[in-house]
């Protein structure tokens, strides 16, 4: 095809250097210093400025002038773009364009804990020294595709590692030695929560491992800058030299954006977020971030819902995302978030405009959309002086188009990069599409010429008879071959005409089937609008109402993220206080301002909503001392100590388990790190305020906790890892001694006033030594339980809680003496060797010895019925009902050091209460209302209404998808997000095992 040749053709080129630098040995050096002008165009100088009938004058790849009355110098080559639009070409911020393949480190059978490199930071996934330019080779094939999509410049980087070093900004034009196309060799600095494939180093293996590593790196960089670190570290040096570049952080979901931003805030770094497309889900908090978001435009295809059974695997949340994704940009823009766009995730760059148009159809302002691919990305990488608009002095990077952006017939004729012309389609092709009266040799025909993106075809009828025809239209010459009306004749007429700039008729020469020459004329008919139908369809598309947003935006989500506490008066209930008052019959409880205001008889409050509690039971909300719900990842197993990580970085507020746990009467949990290593991570103590964002689930002034672990899991006994210390219980003890010895020394150095390198891991351990952070230690057998208490005593601190503690009954007296609590399973055992002596009487014995006992779940299923698990201690060991109830309320509150706020029904405590239909220690009990701080988060009646809503919304979206499918849109297979119930043993990506 001729057009393809055009694509690669650069018709005009310029010498770019006023003064020679590179010697030329092939001939006489030509120095062209001509100007070029694109004139008579509608020039969109920038999103905020459009000039009609204007001229763009440029020279040596740079814009000299733009405007209506530009005076053209004599030596100007003029390109007539009458009636055409000129836009600054687009800029891609996030790409690995031209980056040569990075080779992967070989796999090994055992996890690797040490780095491959020497002289660089201790973690191989931090690669600030990487530089895109050193791995770059101009890729003309990709460049051509990108130019075709309207791009003029691309910011590329080595997409490998967590810290990925600096990118480079290239113009999409081939040149020797980068001397022309390299616009900035240090354009921006890149991050992504992912590992380098150049190393198999295990750490980090979880999201909280990434955030901790980043924090520590920043601390270390600071220390290095201050000369506290004596060793030479090439990675840190590289980072320090690049830290003032724009910092770009690519994320996979909106939660990760918050996580990155939180770390950035701590260190005064404002990232530009390369987003994930689901930002709308938490828009209120997201806008507070004040980050620039570079949004991907990959929208989910409609799911294939034609199979009525497969359909079941699709969730409302996924379907709603399908509906919402194209509206993401609009929602962000409406909320004042600074946005631009990237092709990240798109199959081809050509999809960008198509999808951006979809976003515009969903209400995104066209100017914002335009800015999002020009001025905004230029700003994001600090290249506004070069790119993004067509102002004087900037690069002559522009496209010439048929229509304004986002119009239906929009197409790009030419893409000029630094003054180099790339013709994609003939600019001056005359559109001959339309319906004509065709008269050939006196005979009348109906001629219809169609134009489908530059490809013309014809249909010819003589009365009602359709004639065979073939149309070619090139270089302004139209040739139409016609078969004869008499099909028995194998004769063809050939009509040919040179098309002149547009007119309503054209005529030319006709060579008839019999060889005679004649003439023909084609006269254009009045066009009738056939677009009505299309409009109708589009209207329908646009009218697809977004289902109302919920938090989370999936089944059972709440109408708003934040809820005001209500004034609630529960009348005439049996109140299990959990306090000295015991169980009170026929009692009223008033909840006010999020607190338990009054407990008594015949209370009244005119402004309170009254709930009849007759025949029902009111208790404090259940507290789970050991939980792994609402966590994105659970184990950072990449080191044998991970005290530097915090589960507060891994909270997942969208986990349906939160809602289901509320339906089981749970109001607070400790989201614990797993048990992959002896010293685990810091905990997140959460209130299950379903709908609120991660940060808002965490307790205010939260007490500090950390997970420790002993036994089979930390020895890696059950999944074959044998390259990490410790492999025996003997080694486990030494890990603790080693780290606490280090922490002590660290503390002494810190106290001495000498300069020291801030170490988050040591800081955490120091908090333990200082009694400011509480240990919850996963433990099973008596020897190891005893060991940890002895180590703690030597280092002069107390083990706060032994969790699981299935042999606690064997050392209950020692635990009591030491002051440790026990948080145990009611009846689990026999799942591994170290629980062979686990007995369901454990809670009773420890309780009888005066240990503070809690019953925990460690399980996304059991958490839904912890009341039953507490009641099992009545069966196994005869614990009195009121004490048994405390096992899941006041006692875990004490162990978590939140008993001043929750755990019992007492005036002044938080209004975290549950109304049950029956005695909560009975299997027949179910929560009817679960209330946290005066907000009803679960209501059994509202739940019924939500079920109906879920069904209705599912059906609505399924119908929409059926329609999308039948319109021939692409559909995608059904993904089921496999719900994983995380346990102590759940590792993200070193090993994957369950109990």
């Amino acid at each position, binding site marked *: 095809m001729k057009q393809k040749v055009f694509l690669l053709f650069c018709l005009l080129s310029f010498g770019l250097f006023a003064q020679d630098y590179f010697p030329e040995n092939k001939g006489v050096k030509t120095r062209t210093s001509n100007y070029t002008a694109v004139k008579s165009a509608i020039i969109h100088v920038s999103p905020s400025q459009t000039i009609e009938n204007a001229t763009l004058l440029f020279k040596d790849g740079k814009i000299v002038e733009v405007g209506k009355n530009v005076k053209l110098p004599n030596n100007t080559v003029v390109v007539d773009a009458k009636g055409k639009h000129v836009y600054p070409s687009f800029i891609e911020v996030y790409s690995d364009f031209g980056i040569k393949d990075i080779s992967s480190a070989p796999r090994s059978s055992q996890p690797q804990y040490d780095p491959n490199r020497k002289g660089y930071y201790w973690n191989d996934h931090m690669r600030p020294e990487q530089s895109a330019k050193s791995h770059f080779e101009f890729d003309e094939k990709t460049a051509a595709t990108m130019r075709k999509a309207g791009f003029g410049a691309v910011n590329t980087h080595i997409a490998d590692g967590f810290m990925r070093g600096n990118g480079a900004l290239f113009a999409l034009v081939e040149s020797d030695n980068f001397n022309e196309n390299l616009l900035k060799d240090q354009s921006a600095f890149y991050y992504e929560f992912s590992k380098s494939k150049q190393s198999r180093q295990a750490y980090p293996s979880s999201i909280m491992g990434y955030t901790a590593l980043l924090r520590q790196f920043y601390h270390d960089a600071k220390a290095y800058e201050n000369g506290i670190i004596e060793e030479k570290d090439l990675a840190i040096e590289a980072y320090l030299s690049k830290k003032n570049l724009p910092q770009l952080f690519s994320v996979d979901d909106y939660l990760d954006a918050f996580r990155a931003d939180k770390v950035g805030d701590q260190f005064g770094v404002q990232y530009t977020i390369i987003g994930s497309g689901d930002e709308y889900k938490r828009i209120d908090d997201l806008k507070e971030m004040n980050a620039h978001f570079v949004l991907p435009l990959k929208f989910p295809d409609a799911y294939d819902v034609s199979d009525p059974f497969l359909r079941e695997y699709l969730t409302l949340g996924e379907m709603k995302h399908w509906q919402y994704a194209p509206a993401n940009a609009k929602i962000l823009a409406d909320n004042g978030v600074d946005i631009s766009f990237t092709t990240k995730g798109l199959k081809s760059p050509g999809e960008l405009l198509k999808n951006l148009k979809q976003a515009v159809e969903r209400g995104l302002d066209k100017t914002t959309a335009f800015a999002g691919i020009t001025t905004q990305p230029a700003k994001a990488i600090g290249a506004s002086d070069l790119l993004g608009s067509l102002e004087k002095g900037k690069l002559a990077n522009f496209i010439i188009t048929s229509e304004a952006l986002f119009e239906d017939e929009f197409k790009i004729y030419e893409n000029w990069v630094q003054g180099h012309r790339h013709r994609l389609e003939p600019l001056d092709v005359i559109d001959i599409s339309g319906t004509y009266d065709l008269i050939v040799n006196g005979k009348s025909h109906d001629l219809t010429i169609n134009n489908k993106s530059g490809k013309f075809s014809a249909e010819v009828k003589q009365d009602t008879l359709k004639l065979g025809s073939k149309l070619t239209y090139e270089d302004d010459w139209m040739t139409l071959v016609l078969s004869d009306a008499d099909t028995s004749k194998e004769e063809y007429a050939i009509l040919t005409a040179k098309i002149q700039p547009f007119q309503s008729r054209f005529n030319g020469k006709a060579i008839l089937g019999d060889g005679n020459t004649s003439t023909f004329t084609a006269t254009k008919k009045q066009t009738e609008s056939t677009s009505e139908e299309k409009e109708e369809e589009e209207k329908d598309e646009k009218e697809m109402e977004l289902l109302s947003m919920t938090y989370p935006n999936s089944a059972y989500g709440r109408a708003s993220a934040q809820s005001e506490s209500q004034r609630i008066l529960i009348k005439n209930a049996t109140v299990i206080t959990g306090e000295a008052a015991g169980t009170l019959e026929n009692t009223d409880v008033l909840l006010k301002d999020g607190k338990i205001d009054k407990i008594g008889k015949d209370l009244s409050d005119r402004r309170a909503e009254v709930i009849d509690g007759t025949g029902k039971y009111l208790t404090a909300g259940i507290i789970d001392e050991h939980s792994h719900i609402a966590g994105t990842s659970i184990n950072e197993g990449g080191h044998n100590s991970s005290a530097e990580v915090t589960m507060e970085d891994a909270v997942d507020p969208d986990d349906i388990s939160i809602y289901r746990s509320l339906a089981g009467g749970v109001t607070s949990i400790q989201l614990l790190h797993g048990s992959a290593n002896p010293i685990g991570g810091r905990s997140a103590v959460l209130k299950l305020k379903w709908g609120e964002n991660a940060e808002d689930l965490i307790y205010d002034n939260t007490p500090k906790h950390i997970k420790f672990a002993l036994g089979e899991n930390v020895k890696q006994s059950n999944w074959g890892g044998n390259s990490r210390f410790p492999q025996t219980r003997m080694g486990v003890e030494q890990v603790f001694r080693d780290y606490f010895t280090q922490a002590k020394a660290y503390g002494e150095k810190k106290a001495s006033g000498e300069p020291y390198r801030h170490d988050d891991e040591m800081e955490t351990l120091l908090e333990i030594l200082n009694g400011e952070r509480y240990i919850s230690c996963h433990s099973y057998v008596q020897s190891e339980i005893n060991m940890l208490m002895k180590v703690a005593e030597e280092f002069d601190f107390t083990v706060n809680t032994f969790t699981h503690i299935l042999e606690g009954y064997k050392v209950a007296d020692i635990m009591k003496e030491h002051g440790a609590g026990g948080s145990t399973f009611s009846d689990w055992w026999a*799942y591994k060797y170290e629980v062979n002596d686990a007995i369901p*009487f454990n809670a009773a*014995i420890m309780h009888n010895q005066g240990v503070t006992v809690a019953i925990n779940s460690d399980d996304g299923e059991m958490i839904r019925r912890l009341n039953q698990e507490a009641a099992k201690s*009545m069966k196994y060991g005869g614990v009195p009902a009121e004490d048994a109830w405390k096992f899941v309320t006041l006692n875990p509150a004490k162990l978590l050091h939140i008993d001043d706020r929750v755990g019992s029904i007492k005036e002044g405590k938080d209004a975290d209460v549950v109304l049950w239909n029956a005695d909560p220690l009975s299997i027949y009990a179910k929560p009817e209302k679960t209330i946290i701080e005066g907000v009803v988060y679960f209501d059994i009646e509202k739940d019924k209404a939500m079920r109906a809503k879920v069904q209705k919304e599912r059906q609505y979206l399924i119908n929409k998808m059926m329609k999308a499918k039948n319109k021939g849109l692409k559909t995608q297979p059904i993904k089921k997000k496999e*719900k994983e119930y995380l346990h102590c043993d759940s590792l993200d990506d070193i090993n994957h095992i369950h109990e």
Partner: protein
Amino acid sequence: MNYKHLLTSCIVAIAMVLTSQAQQTPAPEQSQAISIVGATAHIGNTEVIENSVVVFEDGKIIYVGTDKSQAKGQEIDANGKHVYPGFIAPNATLGLVEIDAVAATNDEDELGKMLPHVRSLIAYNAESKIVESMRPNGVLMGQITPQGGRISGTSSVVQFDAWNWEDAVIKEDDAIHMNWPRGFRRSGNWYDADRVWEKNKEYTSEIDEVTAYMNNAKAYVPGSKDTDLEFEAMAGLFDGSKALFIHVEGEKEIRDVISFKNKMNLDRVTIVGGYHAHKVAKELAANDISVLVQRTHLNPNFEDDDYDLPYKLPKLLSDAGVLVALEGSGRMERMNSRNLPFYAGTAAAFGVDKELAVQMITLNTAKILGMENQIGSLEVGKDATLFVSEGDALDMKGNIINHAYIQGRDVSLESHQTELYERYSNKYQD
């Protein structure tokens, strides 16, 4: 506290009687008639008799009613207490695995695809420490079932107080277990971010394979000279001596099971698991297919599902006329088998009548196992496999077992666990 003292002394007394070894010694044959007098009797067929008299002799129940004069032999005063038929745990792996994480103790899943001839009974460890921990919760019998493959093998029904598998068995080789092919599967590996649920392209051919296998088994003449061990084992399906248990979850697959049953002209087919059985409940009832409902203590499989779907599944099915019993397979299923009464309690909390919930772990289970003439209810002529509980045995706080009898034998309620309890309670007493 006073009661604690009392309790401990009680336990010490009991402990003295028992020898302290790893497993409890099976009880001797019933030597005299035993009468349980004054209890609320939960017959197992939803009937309740207050202030009842239950008499059994030579291992069989000889009287159930209210006539005190019928009492004879050893009389047990059970006033204010409750008597239940022994609970039955179907589709269990008790005695096949001792410690989940210790591979050497695992005998539940044999290599291969079509293994009808593999028999659970001979691997059943009657001395398992987990098995003995069932009795103090009223779980006195179980159907021991091989796992894995397309046809996992042949189960047997045992009672939980025995020297070895031979005296444990109460119905040998009762059923063949089949894992129905999955209509949908996930692509890729567990660690892939974008795994997709898709139609299992092999689904039809997998069903064809099962169908062909069944047809061949049917055509086989048992006892013929060219002995085929697999088809010999299958023969019972066609002469009515064995039931077919099909483990299946999804609606589409269940619909296929219904047509499979009819095509194969099978009499006794039970669905095990049946997460989506409620969507096909009427058809199941009409086609006489019973369901062993999966453990009620589970999370819903799908985010959009009602939070209580697993809790109310027994109710949804039984309301539609399906014969329902409860099973407990899944994570940590062996040690959890003792929670079977509480699975039933949960079904009751979510809509099933309490006595019907009892029936779902007694008489209904017996019916599904084809043993309703021998076990499953407190009716004259049946095995005297029953227990006395302080309170409601479906409720944790009431499930405190005073006496348990298996075929009239007064079985121990002690276990490795109670022994440790005693030992350490004593330690702190001193």
